[in-house]
């Protein structure tokens, strides 16, 4: 069910990113038996769905976060010696529409995650811990 929800979100993404998001959620779905076993948590359909959904969202967050922060931190690190960066045929500066759009995208996603109490899960790297936390919050 939650893989279907991730499918619907991924349907709005370019194919390559959609494949990344769905592929990652599926890999977590395949690992569910081990995750529940290691977490010592009884498997329920609801918990399993939430875990797979969180996995897809984590991948979406990772795409958004890494692309924004790599550019933002590159501009910071290059400091005053560089005003813009050329990547292939694209020139990007702090003022360029692409960088502004990346920042808006990432801020928008953060707000959705924060408003729905999902942000903490983005910071957790262990699915065992996520399963335990979800089970505690039920």
């Amino acid at each position: 069910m939650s893989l279907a929800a991730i499918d619907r979100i991924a349907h709005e993404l370019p194919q390559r990113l959609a494949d990344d998001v769905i592929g990652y959620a599926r890999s977590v779905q395949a690992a569910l038996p081990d995750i529940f076993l290691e977490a010592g948590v009884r498997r329920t359909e609801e918990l399993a769905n939430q875990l797979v959904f969180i996995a897809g969202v984590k991948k979406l967050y990772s795409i958004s976060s890494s692309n924004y922060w790599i550019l933002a931190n590159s501009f910071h690190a290059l400091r005053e010696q560089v005003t813009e960066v050329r990547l292939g045929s694209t020139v990007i500066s702090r003022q360029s529409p692409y960088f502004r759009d990346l920042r808006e995208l990432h801020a928008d996603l953060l707000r959705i995650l924060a408003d729905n109490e999902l942000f903490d899960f983005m910071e957790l790297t262990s699915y065992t811990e996520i399963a335990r936390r979800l089970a505690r919050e039920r």
Partner: protein
Amino acid sequence: MNVDVVSKLLERFARRHRTTFSQISSRQSMQLELGAVIGVQEHYRAGGFDIQITNPHGSSQFVVKTNAKGAPWNYSRICAVRGMHAVDIHMNLTVRGAHDDGIYCVDVGITSPGSVPGGKGKSKWLCLENKHLRSFAEVKRLVVYPMLLAQFVGIVHEIKPRFLRPPTRNGFGRGEHLPPTLIVLGHYSSNSGGIVRSYPKRNLQINVAENFDVRVAWARSEATRSPLYWDDDSGTPRIDSKKAADALIAELEGAEA
């Protein structure tokens, strides 16, 4: 958590930012190449090296070399100097293998200063001779799985095998020159963390910088931190994730204002 509600919000979010996601899709590999060379630069800066960037034609535009094609003098290079120690840092650098005439392309090449020509010469420049390559870094948009580690060890064997046998080379590591480093956006999967932790005992002088995007954000707050090494050998950043998240949201909102 209501999956249906969040799912609908994220569908609308993805639709709203469809154009930006398309641009991300076509550029993210190149952005990661940029991230890798900046990560190496910041490692040297954190080690007390002075950084000087040289852009082609003396401009203020940093030109990223995104593949093996093209002459190095048409792209930006970084010089890191600390006292008598200096290295140049290049992107997608072609280099001669250590064992034969094979030519390889490393994502980030750390070289002896001035060993890569700064302009076109009389004869065609093919690659850097192996002896001038001090070290290198490779970057992957993957989780760290055991076969990826094995592949990287193989690359080091072909290009800089001295880092795979004792005695350990002095002057490489945290705060010093960078040993061969695998930079990865993803995290350790299955037993790969254990494999990496065994490298020092096996005299493999190899660094693995997993979770690279997290590291870059983490190192940004303090110039003395290398984004390619955590604070200690625990393999985890010593940061408060809640504080980091709040700071991140505040920074983004501040930038929007």
